[in-house]
């Protein structure tokens, strides 16, 4: 018969034999069981081939439920506009088929279906879809359910929700947004008194609670910035390459020039200083490295630190600063002691 003189290699390369060993198809399993019974001379080779084929298996770890659920929400949202075939144009037979599909879905995905139905049936209800926060010393990249990409800086947090067909982010700290274009659903970042609204664009918002200034820098597209405080209402349209500064104390919006390289360096792991005084350096280092800096002694001369540190250790950064300014330091775990 056909396989009688097969070598170990021949058997290993035989598709139906693999299928028998890996139990992929019933008909192959039945065939080879029967065949090997009838051809005992082949058994030795068959065993060697089977051992080699079965020496390993591939078992990728399943994707996390969190990711699956997040992406389901995003998909569900995208399908909400009804770009697909509308139900009115469907034939009766298709409607009947939908019934089958729906019951099949119920059988396999009860857990997901429930929140979904609730979410879509009432668009007026705010849907909190995602929350992310970074401790000091950690940066992350987040994809929002609508497809927007966010680089979230250290010591920052955001909350994303969708309400009345609007996309809303509440931000504390700093983030860079690459907004998924969707002209029907504006994208607004709320950061304290300042809100930034965009369609499809990319921009950076720096709004740490403890900072006096909130800064927005636009890279591409067009955004509208609004500030609200003590009855003063200000709107400002920003063009690419420009930035705006909001002074929390004076409640004022002012257009300002930024060095894009400087402002966006954090995304690429570059910590940058331009004529930075001691207070600023201290604050940035604390956020960046997740440390607390304790100071003793008196500052003798004002600092004006310039420098760019790409993926450097805290020790390296402090050593570099020491070249221009005199101080001693000690790193003890998460505490840094600086002595003037």
């Amino acid at each position, binding site marked *: 018969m056909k396989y009688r003189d097969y070598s170990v290699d021949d058997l290993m390369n035989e598709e139906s034999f693999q299928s028998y060993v890996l139990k992929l198809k019933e008909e192959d399993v039945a065939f080879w069981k029967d065949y090997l019974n009838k051809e005992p001379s082949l058994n030795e080779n068959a065993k060697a081939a089977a051992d080699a084929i079965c020496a*390993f298996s591939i078992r990728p770890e399943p994707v996390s439920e969190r990711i699956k659920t997040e992406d389901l929400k995003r998909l569900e949202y995208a399908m909400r506009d009804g770009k697909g075939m509308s139900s009115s144009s469907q034939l009766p037979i298709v409607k009947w088929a939908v019934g089958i599909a729906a019951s099949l879905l119920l059988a396999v995905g009860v857990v997901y279906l429930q929140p979904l139905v609730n979410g879509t049936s009432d668009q007026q209800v705010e849907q909190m879809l995602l929350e992310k926060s970074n401790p000091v010393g950690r940066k992350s990249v987040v994809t929002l359910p609508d497809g927007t990409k966010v680089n979230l800086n250290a010591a920052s947090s955001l909350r994303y929700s969708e309400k009345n067909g609007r996309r809303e982010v509440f931000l504390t700290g700093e983030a860079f947004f690459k907004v998924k274009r969707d002209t029907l659903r504006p994208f607004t970042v709320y950061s304290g008194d300042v809100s930034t609204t965009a369609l499809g664009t990319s921009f950076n918002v720096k709004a740490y609670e403890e900072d006096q200034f909130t800064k927005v820098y636009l890279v591409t597209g067009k955004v509208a910035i609004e500030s609200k405080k003590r009855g003063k209402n200000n709107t400002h349209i920003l063009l690419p390459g420009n930035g705006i500064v909001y002074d929390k104390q004076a409640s004022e919006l002012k257009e300002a020039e930024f060095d894009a390289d400087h402002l966006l360096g954090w995304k690429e792991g570059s910590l940058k200083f331009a004529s930075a005084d001691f207070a600023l350096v201290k604050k940035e280092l604390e956020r960046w490295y997740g440390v607390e800096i304790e100071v003793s002694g008196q500052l003798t001369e004002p600092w004006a630190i310039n420098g760019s540190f790409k993926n450097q250790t805290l020790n390296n950064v402090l050593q570099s600063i020491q070249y221009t300014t005199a101080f001693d330091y000690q790193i003890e775990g998460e505490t840094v002691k600086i002595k003037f």
Partner: protein
Amino acid sequence: MEHSFQKIWLSKGTKDAVLSLYDLYYSDLYAYGFRISNDQDMTRDAIHDLFIRIWDGKVNLESVVSPKPYLLKTLRYILIDSQKKRSKTTSLSAAEVYEYVLSEEDILIHAEFSEENKVKLKQAILNLPPKQKEVIYLRYFEGFDYSEIAEITDAKNQSIRNLMSKALSELRKYFSILVMLWVA
């Protein structure tokens, strides 16, 4: 199962059909896509894109008998396309940069080897050329037959046969050496 899917194809463009496909195949799509792109965001975007195409009726499912190979094939196409766009700035062609990334955790060794030799066999699998790894993955993990793998990877049956044979004979070489070591 297959019979039910024929019904789902008929209702393409409806939310329920798309969502049931999503629920059934998301994990497989993610696992395969991630090993092509080695990039979580890119994989997730591509899967999103795939289902939106189905929803918009741009992907025609009516003539498709079994959905899984077809979905994997389309996902693969989307990912390679976006990698091409991404690598436009480099001088390498997409074929030159094609990687299929298996990790050590993806592989389970069943042979009764010492831990050290298990690692060696794993390493041998990881060192296979990308296309051989991809074929091994689709055959061992997904259990596709040669013609399905050919359809997914846009290749001829014969080249799948060759890739599979090369991979297995390479692995058998290691396997025999390790068996001998083990016996000795």
